[in-house]
């Protein structure tokens, strides 16, 4: 992604004692805490006599379970943070939001448990501050006040709303039900005349909404884009200095907006996109969460993709000074997302940030992108946040799942495999689709898609739903005909992530990735569920091997699974009788051939080639699965060149019986 943004800090570090008079702003780089296993949320609050300790929620990895780490921090440039404690170990499974009250209670949302926990400051047992009855799929949280006057707000992207809890009550006021789509972060702000209001960032609409405490819509501002004041995938908000600070995640920056009479006007922004792998010291890479200390001197940014938290302080002047050497603004480039599918000579990849599906032709010396399908919008035929794709019929039929619009779209691709490889911006023609929320009659958060018997009159389409952790089954006419879910014996699915068809003898089955599984807090919980063609659960496998599986694919008796927590690809093999055994795997964190950073989508081609979307490294890798050797790397980053030079890619050839694409 190349959203190169305009402002950097100059100078990058400023002694805080120099900020004693005149206007100042937050955004001067101070220090970085590294080696945190995917930090996803941050908050400042009192701990062990430190009034502004830094709390960081980590998602964990293969070796370290999720927890809340507590640090003593300093406003002195370059001074490292010091760990002083830990909260929630053995209790949390997938924390996503974090807030600390003035009296030191720690509030944590967990999206697997669908809970809001309160960890008392005295170290007592945690209590559920809200749970399944009120939270669908929680995200960011904020707290203000104490006792009967305490207010807690939780963003609930699963429900498309936020929940406000007052004075310890477990019955919330629902906020923004008809306005919010995927609210990610929430914070309390100062309203007019001493009132309190709530600011919420919506990752699907790229807007900031402000509500009063009764849920009244006060104002909303911003929209999608890379330019100053525009947002792309905002993921957290924080109130300080009379401003709403926004983690502008996909623009790799922080933007501060005015409140009061000029609410919504951009005050300033800081951060430049980290281009080199691991680049930091003020350069940002998908900042997911932010926090500002109570004294307003420190701002912390959590960057889960780089396992770090960067700390920023204050600098003189009302806003940062632009660094002209990096003063470029542009839209995002291809960033391979969670899903890949292939058919014939073509593969389709998802780029959520550019809101498009990319179609690649495999006949050249490397996979060549020949078309970007669709553009951003809400109308039928546009995508807000494409998240999954399915290609069939030799590349002629494309399914796209759009989580932002909760829609499945079927498109015809007018591929021409008998003609020379060429780009075609008019390749896709959208045909029909289904509004999944309307079909389900409730909030629906679609994810992966797959198809059994494509093109057949008995064609079945399967789409995952994060709201219910189940799979919706559609017939050829896109009418709902059933659901797949865990049963009493296997337990429910917790954190559904991907789908793939598989072969079981002459029958077809559906593999479902359960990223949370039944491992319980602190233990590897990922697993795969296999459903028969009639919808019955046949078996589960992968327990104890998979930590956080992200993608699955199958060909003949081989099943391959990407694991986001271990940066590996695991191989399973079908044995006579249908049982599945783990038979090895490969990977590990890195940039070399066969190394990954948050591997996501995976697809086994008809000829056996295995394609892995190496999400965090912005690239795809293609392997010979028999020898586990890299045969091609693709993507736009220069550091992919070493992969290409080591590759032994053989272009695909048109089969003699393959005709030109006429569509169905």
């Amino acid at each position, binding site marked *: 992604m190349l959203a190169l943004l305009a402002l950097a800090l100059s100078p990058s570090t400023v002694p805080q004692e120099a900020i004693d008079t005149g206007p100042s702003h937050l955004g001067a780089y101070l220090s970085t805490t590294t080696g945190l296993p995917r930090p996803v949320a941050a908050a400042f609050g009192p701990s062990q006599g430190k009034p502004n300790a830094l709390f960081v929620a980590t998602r964990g990895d293969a070796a370290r379970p999720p927890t809340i780490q507590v640090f003593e921090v300093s406003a002195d440039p370059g001074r490292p943070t010091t760990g002083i404690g830990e909260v929630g170990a053995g209790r949390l499974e997938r924390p996503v939001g974090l807030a600390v009250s003035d009296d030191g209670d720690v509030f944590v949302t967990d999206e697997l448990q669908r809970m809001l926990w309160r960890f008392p400051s005295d170290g007592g047992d945690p209590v559920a501050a809200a749970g399944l009855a009120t939270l669908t799929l929680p995200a960011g949280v904020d707290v203000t006040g104490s006792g009967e006057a305490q207010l807690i707000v939780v963003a609930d992207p699963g429900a498309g709303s936020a929940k406000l809890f007052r004075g310890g009550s477990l019955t919330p006021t629902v906020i923004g039900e008809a306005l919010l789509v995927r609210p990610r972060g929430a914070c309390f702000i100062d309203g007019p005349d001493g009132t309190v209001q709530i600011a919420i960032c919506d990752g699907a*609409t790229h807007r900031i909404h402000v509500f009063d405490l009764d849920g009244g819509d006060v104002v909303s501002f911003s*929209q*999608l*884009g890379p*330019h100053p004041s525009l947002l792309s995938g905002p993921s957290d908000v924080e109130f300080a200095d009379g401003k709403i600070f926004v983690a502008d995640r996909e623009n790799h920056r922080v933007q501060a907006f005015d409140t009061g009479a000029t609410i919504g006007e951009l005050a300033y922004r800081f951060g430049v996109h980290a281009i080199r792998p691991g680049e930091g010291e003020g350069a940002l890479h998908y900042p997911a969460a932010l926090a500002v200390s109570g004294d307003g001197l420190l701002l912390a940014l959590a960057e889960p993709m780089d396992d770090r938290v960067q700390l920023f302080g204050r600098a003189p002047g009302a806003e940062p000074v632009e660094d002209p050497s990096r003063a470029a603004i542009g839209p995002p480039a291809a960033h391979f997302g969670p899903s890949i599918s292939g058919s014939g000579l073509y593969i389709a990849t998802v780029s959520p940030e550019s809101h498009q599906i990319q179609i690649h032709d495999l006949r050249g010396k490397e996979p060549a992108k020949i078309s970007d399908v669709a553009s*951003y919008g809400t109308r039928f*035929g546009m995508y807000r946040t494409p998240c999954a794709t399915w290609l069939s019929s030799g590349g002629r039929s494309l399914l796209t799942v759009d989580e932002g619009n909760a829609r499945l779209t079927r498109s015809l691709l007018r591929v021409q495999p008998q003609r020379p490889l060429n780009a075609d911006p*008019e390749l896709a023609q959208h045909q029909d*689709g*289904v509004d999944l929320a309307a079909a389900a009659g409730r909030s629906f958060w679609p994810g992966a898609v797959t198809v059994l018997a494509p093109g057949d009159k008995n064609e079945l389409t399967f789409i995952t739903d994060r709201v219910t952790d189940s799979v919706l089954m559609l017939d050829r006419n896109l009418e709902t005909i059933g659901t797949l879910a865990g049963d009493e014996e296997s337990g429910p699915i917790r954190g559904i992530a991907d789908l793939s068809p598989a072969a079981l003898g002459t029958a077809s089955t559906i593999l479902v990735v359960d990223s949370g599984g039944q491992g319980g807090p602190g233990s590897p919980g990922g697993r795969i569920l296999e459903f028969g063609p009639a919808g019955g659960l046949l078996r589960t496998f992968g327990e104890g091997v998979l930590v956080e599986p992200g993608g699955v694919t199958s060909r003949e008796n081989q099943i391959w699974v990407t694991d986001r927590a271990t940066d590996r690809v695991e191989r399973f093999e079908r044995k006579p009788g249908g049982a599945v055994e783990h038979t090895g795997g490969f990977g590990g964190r890195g940039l070399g051939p066969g190394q990954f950073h948050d591997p996501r989508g995976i697809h086994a081609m008809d000829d056996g080639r295995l394609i892995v979307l190496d999400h965090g490294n912005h690239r795809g890798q293609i392997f010979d699965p028999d020898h586990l050797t890299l045969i091609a790397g693709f993507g736009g980053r220069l550091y992919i060149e070493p992969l290409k030079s080591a590759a032994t890619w053989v272009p695909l050839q048109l089969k003699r019986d393959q005709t030109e694409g006429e569509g169905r």
Partner: protein
Amino acid sequence: MSRSILPLLALAALGCGPGEPDAGSTSSGAAAPATHPASPEVRGDTLEGLSSGGAFLARVTPLVDPIPMNEAFGVLLSLVDPDSGEPFVDYDEVSIDARMPAHKHGMLRDVGLTPQDDGSMRADGLLLHMYGHWELHVDIRKGALFERAQISVRLQY
């Protein structure tokens, strides 16, 4: 089957990538406006497109000939059952839009549909602001399902 015609929300802004608003263009479903007599004006050739699932045939008759570049014009839209030839009414909403797929943008304006006495619908204010290949999209929604008929229009120098 209930049938209402929503003012169309053609979210079609030039360069509709980053920066394009996607929220403000969704107009609310208004009550069907009063009908108007069909236009006696000059008409161009009727263009036809069968929907992807074959449910309906979209017939679009420009109220100008030829379609101008960068000037607003109107069309009459009829939906027909392709088997019986009778008017097709089995939908909840219908919309019309025009886009340039090679450029990934559409018109710069929204277009509403007004019922006519003869059962057709009139859309005023379409504006194709560039020469080249345009596609007219006629989308219906019935319940949760969408279906599209697509008609090619080429504006030439």
